[in-house]
């Protein structure tokens, strides 16, 4: 009895404000005027020294956006966003042009240090050699393109990537330096008219990463971008574009943490992936944005459009995500399986605690012949959170031999949370084979007691059981992320048992 009582007290005592990564960096910043108008769009474009075609593209998106409605079909509930009450651009004021890490504001570097991000490549490079397709992923190098608020402040490993012919730079730079590539691919997977948030992003996107891997090149290192939202009331609108040309391979890691806030922060990113013939793109995310406080106040609104296009034959795109943060998550990393024999994968761990609301899943759109896809989704709901898997698997009339396997497992911790599974399955070709499995279970008190009797604390026990539950997905992450993700999962569930 005593133990149960203590648990209840502990749950009551949870203060999500203890959010581990909740700190704010004091840096002067350069803001766009509040609100959204053609002037705001022009301001952003000007700040970035963009060519005229880019401004036109943005303005067209903006005009389109004015005609669109915010979607309401997701199982999330939040107060109406006043889009005129937000800032759409903020950049740390540059004192001068930055040419090396030493010149970057030490405050910013300190922030990264707290987050444990290996910005300084020196330590990373000590005795570490990259090998193509090597077995020990912990020894692989990671290149970091750090996005601080909206401006990329440092890009490392550039020289080595250049040697391999890989282009990895902030998209704002790519627009100036590789306009032919950007014009060819930007908006080709997620068109400017795609959906309310993607269209908004197209109009006001601030920065993000651009990756181009030339034909036959296997990118010599994991590419990684860390996003931080640090300016009060600033919506952040990243735009990422990754292209793997014929026979190329790239693995991209994205990780996020943000400082705590009272007001909600809007985040509407767009990520586009293009895989040509025989190319492979692996995109991994660990997301840990501020989820709001113990009353459900504050926290990030995360409305993301992520889509990959398996444009070529035998191409492959794999999404892996660990979602633990944000007050609202609205995110469906998808694959268009256009090329014959192309393959799409979606591995997801979505954890919600406190008052978090997650509506996430994937779309696998089978268009080519003999395409296959695999969906493994693990949802964990604790506290008073709501966790929804929403997915679409569809086979086009001509998608002969399409195959899909889907497994959605939900784990409930406590009795005030909810888990929901909403799968849509459409086969317009009679040769399609679609399999769907789903389970929902509650974390068992008996299992927890068994662990505790062996000496684990309540929280260690929950962490162990949950890590076991998500193991299939964790295994898909690159080693560096898997370790981080495992820790994050335990932190996210602290005090969740009751």
């Amino acid at each position: 009895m005593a133990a149960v009582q203590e648990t209840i007290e502990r749950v009551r005592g949870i203060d999500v404000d203890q959010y581990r990564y909740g700190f704010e960096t004091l840096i002067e910043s350069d803001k766009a005027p509040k609100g959204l108008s053609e002037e705001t769009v022009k301001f952003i474009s000007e700040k970035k020294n963009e060519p005229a075609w880019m401004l036109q593209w943005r303005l067209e998106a903006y005009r389109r956006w004015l005609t669109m409605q915010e979607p309401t079909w997701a199982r999330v509930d939040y107060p109406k966003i006043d889009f005129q009450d937000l800032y759409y651009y903020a950049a740390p004021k540059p004192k001068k042009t930055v040419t090396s890490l030493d010149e970057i504001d030490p405050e910013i570097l300190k922030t990264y240090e707290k987050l444990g991000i290996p910005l300084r490549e020196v330590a990373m490079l000590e005795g570490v050699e990259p090998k193509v397709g090597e077995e020990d992923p912990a020894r692989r190098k990671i290149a970091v393109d750090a996005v601080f608020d909206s401006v990329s402040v440092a890009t490392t490993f550039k020289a080595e990537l250049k040697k391999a012919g890989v282009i990895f730079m902030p998209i704002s730079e790519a627009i100036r330096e590789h306009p032919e590539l950007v014009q060819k691919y930007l908006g080709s997977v997620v068109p400017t008219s795609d959906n309310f948030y993607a269209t908004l992003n197209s109009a006001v996107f601030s920065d993000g990463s651009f990756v181009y891997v030339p034909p036959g090149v296997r990118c010599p290192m994991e590419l990684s971008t860390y996003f931080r939202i640090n300016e009060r009331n600033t919506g952040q609108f990243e735009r990422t574009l990754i292209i793997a040309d014929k026979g190329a391979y790239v693995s991209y890691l994205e990780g996020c943490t943000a400082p705590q806030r009272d007001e909600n922060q809007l985040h509407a990113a767009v990520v586009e992936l293009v895989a040509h013939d025989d190319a492979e793109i692996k995109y991994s995310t660990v997301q840990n944005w501020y989820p709001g406080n113990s009353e459900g106040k504050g926290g990030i609104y995360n409305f993301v459009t992520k889509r990959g296009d398996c444009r070529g034959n035998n191409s492959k795109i794999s999404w892996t995500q660990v979602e633990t943060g944000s007050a609202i998550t609205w995110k469906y990393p998808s694959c268009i399986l256009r090329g014959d024999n192309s393959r799409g994968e979606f591995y997801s761990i979505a954890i919600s605690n406190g008052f978090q609301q997650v509506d996430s899943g994937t779309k696998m759109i089978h268009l080519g012949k003999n395409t296959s896809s695999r969906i493994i989704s693990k949802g964990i709901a604790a506290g008073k959170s709501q966790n929804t898997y929403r997915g679409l698997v569809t086979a086009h009339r001509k998608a002969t031999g399409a195959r899909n396997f889907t497994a959605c497992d939900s784990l409930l911790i406590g009795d005030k949370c909810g888990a929901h599974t909403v799968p849509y399955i459409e086969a317009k070709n009679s040769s399609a084979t679609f399999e769907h499995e789903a389970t929902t279970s509650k974390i068992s008190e008996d299992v927890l007691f068994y662990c505790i009797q062996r000496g684990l604390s309540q929280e260690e026990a929950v962490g162990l059981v949950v890590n076991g539950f998500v193991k299939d997905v964790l295994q898909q992450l690159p080693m560096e992320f898997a370790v981080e993700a495992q820790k994050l999962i335990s932190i996210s569930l602290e005090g969740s048992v009751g």
Partner: protein
Amino acid sequence: MTALLEIRGLKAEIDGRQILNGLDLTVNKGEIHAIMGPNGAGKSTLSYVLSGKPGYEITGGEVLFNGEDLLAMDPDERAAKGLFLAFQYPLEIPGVATLTFLRTALNAQRRKRGEEELSSPDVLKRVRELAKQLNIDPEMLKRPLNVGFSGGEKKRNETLQMALLEPKLCVLDETDSGLDIDALRIVADGVNRLRASDRGMIVITHYQRLLDYIVPDVVHVLSAGRIVKTGGKELALELEATGYAQYQNEAA
């Protein structure tokens, strides 16, 4: 000398139903006590109350473990202080390799005792040695804990955990249930290997059979939540012949 475990007048209930009804029991270091009794006598409840399973309410009495108030400790603290319960039905943890579980448990206990944690290779070395003694296939250590294990494998795994964690007091709850005679012998050998002058054991069982292999120093009969008779190992044989009926009447 302080007794290893001293239970005085222990009363406990679950969902308002009284199960333990003034139970007295003293276990000294080096002793093996068998507790026998009919179904519903409170055998499993005793093991759960000692290990601190939530849901049981203590309504009277006290329990001293090495002179300390056991009932005031959290369940994980009891484990770290050396109380081990071998479960009648060991639980499955999908996705958690047996070895990972063993390492996590051992290091959690060591941390709580202020000892240094052991490295993964050190744990592996110890576990491998112990597994060999228990006839456990090293492949089993990679499998998720108890998932798809046979009854024998589960109980051997419990014994392996017990051997690794080196508890002061082992409580074996119906360890013989679900075991064929060969499996029983292996598990009993493992338990006997853990007999030590500084360790006590409580072996809870319904049948005398187990006690042919794990020979107790003292045998108690538990009925209606109290110890109603205490004797030497011959008491077990006597019970096998006469059954529990007389004690049930006595307790009533």
